[in-house]
C-alpha cells in the first residue's frame, strides 16, 4: 500500500473517531481511540448475537413446533 492510500485510510478512521492524530513538523503521530473502537466492535457483535439467536429460534420453531401445530389443526 502506498503512502497516499494509507493516509486516506487513516483519515477515514480519524473521521469516525477511532484514531486521533497530531502532526509535528514532518511527523504525524496517530493514537488508537480504544474506547470508540471497543464500543463499535462490541456493539456490532451484540447485534450479531441477537440476530443469530433470532434465526435459531425461527429454525427451531419451523422444524418442531410449527409442523406440530399444523398437524393438530388438521
Amino acid at each position, binding site marked *: *500500500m502506498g503512502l497516499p492510500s*494509507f493516509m486516506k*485510510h487513516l483519515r*477515514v*478512521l480519524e473521521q*469516525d*473517531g*477511532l484514531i486521533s492524530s497530531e502532526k509535528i513538523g514532518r511527523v504525524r503521530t496517530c493514537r*488508537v481511540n*480504544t*474506547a*470508540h*473502537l*471497543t*464500543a*463499535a*466492535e*462490541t*456493539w*456490532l*457483535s*451484540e*447485534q*450479531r448475537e441477537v*440476530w*443469530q*439467536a*433470532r*434465526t*435459531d*429460534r*425461527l*429454525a*427451531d*420453531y*419451523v*422444524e418442531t*413446533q*410449527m*409442523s406440530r401445530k399444523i398437524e393438530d389443526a388438521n
Partner: protein
Amino acid sequence: MPIEKPELTITRFINAPPAMVWKAWSTPEHLAEWWIPAPIECRVIKLDLRPGGGFETQMREGVGEFQPHVEGCFLEIVPEARLVWTTVLTEEWRPAEPWMALTAIISFEAEGRGTRYSARVLHKNVADSKKHKEMGFQQGWGTTIDQLTAFVQRLA
C-alpha cells in the same frame, strides 16, 4: 481493513421448505412465537406485507404494559423469497428517528429439501453505535486492536 462495515449477515439451513419458513415470518401468530426470546411476550401490531406497509411488534415482560420493540416499513416483498424492511421509515414511507436505525434483508432460498435462510442487517454507521457505549463494553477489544497493530506493523 481492521474496521468492519456496520453490518452483519446470519445464514442458516432450516429443515423445511421456503414456503413454510416464509409462513413463519409472514403470519402474525407464527411470528409472535419466535421473534422475541421467551419469557418475553411478543405482540404483532402490523405486518402489512407490501412496499410501504407497516411492520410493528411490541414486547411485554410479565403482566405489565406492552412496550415498543420494532417499528418499521416494508420496502420489498417477494413471496417465499425475499423480505426487506427498515426502521428509518414507518408505515407509508413516513421518515422516523428510531432508537436503532437498521435495514434488514431477509432471504429464503430452496436448498435440497430445506431452506437456506439469511438475514443481512445494515446499520447506520460506527458513530451511531457510540450511543450504545453506556450499555457496558469493557470487554472484547482485543481482536480489532490486534488487527490494527498487525496492519501498522506490516507498513513499518
